[in-house]
């Protein structure tokens, strides 16, 4: 396999052999290692010295299931630190199938506001990928739903697409990298941290892959790989959360709305309460029942990417049975719903679709709208007002650019003191004052406020991997540390993080993940050694952040969470600085 380096200064490309130290890495482990090694920590994230790195997981592109993940890395314009965001898409499988272990985008065009695309195919005669640049001017300034079909029309139905929307072109701190879903929608995002702006800053609009004729991903020990795959699949097909017609397949991720509301940890109206009185109207159960009513039949969810067993992506339909949006994820539903005081699923779905159309991260968009509502730009609960503000972001008006800068920046401009962000990144859908462990993850993660970095919600709320009292601070630093290290490995493996629900409860599933990786790579990893490897990845990310100027003072939650008790439990975030510092101090 190769590293493909694309230089946007002169639109050149070269293939390099994979250096030995990177051979056993993939996904986040590889993007973070390359960024830590090659990007100057003090560079401007939107300047020529930042790099944008794409790497699929170790097992991605093999027959492994629920494993079509690609990581995207770089220095984040939102946090000023290292960033890894990942997504599920056929694109993730096609990149390593073409023999490309990592795609590194470097440099910057001298021409202002010009955009190009890259088309990568398999050159059978040469036995290597063929890379061609094309002018992408005709696709810029446009709704992604309008231009995606044109890309398919030009390059064929079998392609996969990565790109950025107008949010990336405007270089917003809130801008994701979009990938196609199974129905060619621009709906799967490596959303967090403004990596769309890094892509935009390099004048890169699309990376189009066509894997036809490509050799695929080599597997060193096929028997071991198959043994691991079977164990993993058995776990996924057995566990109540991940099995067909289980919790995720039936209700989607938005099933969490009700349980977080019951726990008093559903951030509402810009993190001013832990309960939303209209929660049940926007929850996963309401989506399932609403679709049933509007379509006249039950609708179970679909896969976001090829080979997924869990299949948690939903679709929301209007009164006439026409699709409004796919997918209304928990985070999006919360961010654009409860956090804005909006209890109307049709409006929420429309906002999700607009974020997808403009290239915005739904979490950052909703957290920013919450701050804007706090500032009185529009009132809480004003769905048409919120929709209009998203359009302003899409159009690049002055207000749109302020909001597009993200939660932290917009809050500062608008004079808001209650800004739910860490390292400038807006908080996701769990209230740290009601769920202490996730607050520790938000505070200390190398990514800024990020629930996926160490999902302690599993034991604190869901009863997965044991049960822990969400309101207690006891033992939570160690819990967050363990989850952060394990997660760094799962993000490296190529599996979707949702396999964790099954493999944290079913030991053979965890073994299966390790065996799949050993089978592909020929390594001898154990359950313990992969957690250690996850820890090493975190240390690299942490070192980059320290060199970029992020200190312990940045590993703190905003002041209001320590001083303003949150209803209904009327708790503050009472984790000591010593405990927060121990997360990485004792890694």
């Amino acid at each position, binding site marked *: 396999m190769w590293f493909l380096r694309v230089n946007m200064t002169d639109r050149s490309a070269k293939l390099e052999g994979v250096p030995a130290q990177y051979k056993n890495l993939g996904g986040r482990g590889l993007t973070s290692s390359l960024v830590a090694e090659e990007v100057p920590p003090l560079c401007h994230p939107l300047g020529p010295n930042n790099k944008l790195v794409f790497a699929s997981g170790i097992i991605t592109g093999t027959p492994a299931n629920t494993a079509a993940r690609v990581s995207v890395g770089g220095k984040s314009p939102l946090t000023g630190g290292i960033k890894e965001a990942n997504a599920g898409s056929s694109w993730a499988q096609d990149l390593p199938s073409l023999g490309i272990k990592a795609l590194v985008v470097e440099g910057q065009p001298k021409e202002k506001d010009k955009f190009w695309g890259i088309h990568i195919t398999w050159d059978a005669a040469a036995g290597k990928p063929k890379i061609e640049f094309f002018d992408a001017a005709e696709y810029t300034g446009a709704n992604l739903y309008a231009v995606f079909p044109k890309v398919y029309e030009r390059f064929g139905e079998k392609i996969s697409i990565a790109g950025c929307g107008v949010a990336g072109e405007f270089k917003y701190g809130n801008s994701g990298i979009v990938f196609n879903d199974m129905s060619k929608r621009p709906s799967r995002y490596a959303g967090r941290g403004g990596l769309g702006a890094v892509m935009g800053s390099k004048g890169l609009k699309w990376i189009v892959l066509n894997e036809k004729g490509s050799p695929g991903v080599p597997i060193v020990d096929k028997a071991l790989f198959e043994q691991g795959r079977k164990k993993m699949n058995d776990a996924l097909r057995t*566990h*109540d*959360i*991940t099995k067909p017609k*289980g*919790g*995720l397949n*039936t*209700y*989607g*991720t*938005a*099933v*969490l709305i*009700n*349980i977080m*509301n*019951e*726990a*008093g940890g559903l951030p509402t109206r810009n993190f001013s309460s832990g309960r939303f009185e209209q*929660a*049940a109207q926007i*929850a*996963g*159960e*309401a989506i399932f*029942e609403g679709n049933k009513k509007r379509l006249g039949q039950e609708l179970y969810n679909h896969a976001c990417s090829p080979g997924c067993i869990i299949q*948690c992506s939903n679709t929301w339909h209007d009164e006439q049975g026409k699709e409004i949006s796919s997918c209304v*994820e*928990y*985070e999006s539903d919360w961010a654009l719903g409860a956090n804005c005081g909006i209890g109307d699923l049709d409006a929420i779905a429309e906002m999700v679709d607009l974020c997808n159309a403009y290239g915005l991260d739904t979490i950052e968009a909703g957290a920013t709208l919450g701050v804007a509502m706090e500032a009185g730009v529009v009132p809480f609960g004003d769905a048409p007002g919120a929709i209009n503000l998203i359009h302003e972001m899409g159009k690049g008006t002055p207000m749109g650019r302020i909001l597009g800068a993200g939660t932290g920046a917009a809050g500062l401009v608008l004079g808001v003191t209650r800004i739910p962000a860490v390292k400038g990144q807006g908080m996701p859908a769990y209230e740290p004052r009601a769920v202490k462990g996730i607050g520790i993850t938000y505070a200390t993660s190398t990514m800024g406020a990020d*629930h*996926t970095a160490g*999902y302690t*919600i*599993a034991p604190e*709320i*869901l*009863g*997965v991997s044991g*049960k822990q*009292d*969400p*309101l207690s601070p006891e033992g939570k630093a160690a819990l967050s540390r363990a989850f952060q290290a394990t997660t760094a490995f799962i993000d490296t493996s190529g599996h979707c*993080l*949702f396999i964790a*629900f099954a493999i944290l409860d079913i030991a053979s599933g965890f073994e299966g993940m390790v065996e799949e990786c050993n089978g592909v790579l020929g390594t001898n990893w154990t359950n313990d050694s992969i957690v250690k490897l996850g820890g090493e990845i975190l240390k690299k990310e942490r070192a980059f952040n320290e060199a970029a100027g992020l200190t312990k003072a940045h590993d703190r939650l905003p002041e209001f969470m320590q001083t303003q008790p949150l209803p*209904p*439990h009327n708790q503050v975030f009472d984790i000591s600085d010593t405990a927060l510092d121990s997360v990485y101090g004792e890694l």
Partner: protein
Amino acid sequence: MSVRELMIVRVRLFANLVQYRPGAKAGQPFDVELAAGSTLAELIAHLQLPRVQVKVIFVNGIGVSQDYVIQPGDEVGFFSPIGGG
């Protein structure tokens, strides 16, 4: 022989558990009358919910186990196994 006093409990069902109460909607509360001093396990039996499907229980927003002794006026939420993120 003493007669146990009765009490009212407010209940909400979520996710897969809704199907065990005809006409119920997720999150829509209903009141149940049962003997004072009953446990959640007894309430689960009274509601004819499959016990293994009751994964998470909140009483007044606090997570509890099935041996919790219900107090008058408690608000109970029952969840089948769910996850997301």
